[in-house]
């Protein structure tokens, strides 16, 4: 059974509130995560997204505190911007540099820190 994480619910609500009317111009980290990341990493970020039924390498669980804390913000930024192969991980994690600006990727990294409720060690 997967965790129905109350903390994530709170984070989600905070994310929605953060999406102000100016959201059309500046999407929040959560909005970007929802659009680009949840298809594999799951709606609550636990790595069990819609696409994991027939996938060769399971996506990372972004709610796993210890694993996420072991990665710096720059490492996460690089993995998102240039894809899994840029950090010696699976090519199933694509490069998102055409989908998001650097500033937007930084907001996704900040959202990842909310999901794991952690900062880099």
């Amino acid at each position, binding site marked *: 059974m997967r965790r129905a994480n109350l903390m994530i619910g709170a984070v989600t609500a905070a994310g929605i509130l953060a999406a102000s009317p100016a959201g059309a111009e500046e999407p929040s980290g959560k909005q970007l995560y929802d659009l680009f990341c949840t298809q594999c990493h799951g709606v609550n970020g636990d790595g069990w*997204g819609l*696409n994991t039924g027939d*996938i060769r390498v399971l996506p990372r669980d972004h709610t796993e505190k210890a694993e996420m804390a072991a990665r710096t913000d720059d490492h996460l930024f690089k993995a998102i911007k240039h894809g899994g192969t840029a950090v010696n991980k699976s090519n199933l994690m694509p490069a998102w540099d055409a989908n998001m600006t650097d500033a937007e990727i930084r907001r996704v990294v900040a959202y990842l820190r909310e999901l794991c409720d952690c900062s880099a060690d």
Partner: protein
Amino acid sequence: MWGQPRRGPWTSLLFAALLATSGQAGAADSKAFVEGECAQCHTLEKPAEFTVERMLNREAPDLYYAGNKFRREWLVEWLQEPKRIRPAGTYFGQNVVMGDERDIVPDDKLEPHPAYSAEEAEKAAEYLMTLRPYDDLIAEASYQEKPVSGMMGKMNFGKFKGCDACHQPTPGTGGLSGPEVHTAFARATPEFLFSFIKNPQAWEPRTFMPNPGLNDGEVNKLVNYLRFLSEE
């Protein structure tokens, strides 16, 4: 030509005028039909802004470049007997819920597309095929038909390029967030497929398809594999 009866100049002019009027009426009728039937869910005009918010709220695929994308004969057939192309809907996030093992799309979440008569389907296709804001992108696409090995194509589509993480190359295999691709070559022109795979953001800056960063040869291999899949 073809043994037509001879007509005087005035008769010819009148005939031409009548033809033009009926053509215009047909086009107007076709446009009105599409606007009445499709516009509630589909975007028929190029958006003023391409935003993340638009993508999160989009109810159906954009049709404003339908004429740059579809094969007319496929459109006419599909509109009479629509089959789901995007297993999780246009934007999966609107339909996905947490399941016991992984995220799922509940069976009752997705609405079927309405089916139309042959006459209505022809009418819709007539207008949709006139929507061509991206002729320039299509003109740049350098697709070359080449033979493809099914086994190598599968390995390339899957293991090497990772496309199957989001797309189904055959029914029941692959990912669910993107459109299935086993009918892609039947529904879209090779030039569209080439152009979209090469640079998805040129078509929709906020698409959730990543840019795979491929050269023309690599894109050609994928499009030819899609052709192979459609012939299976």
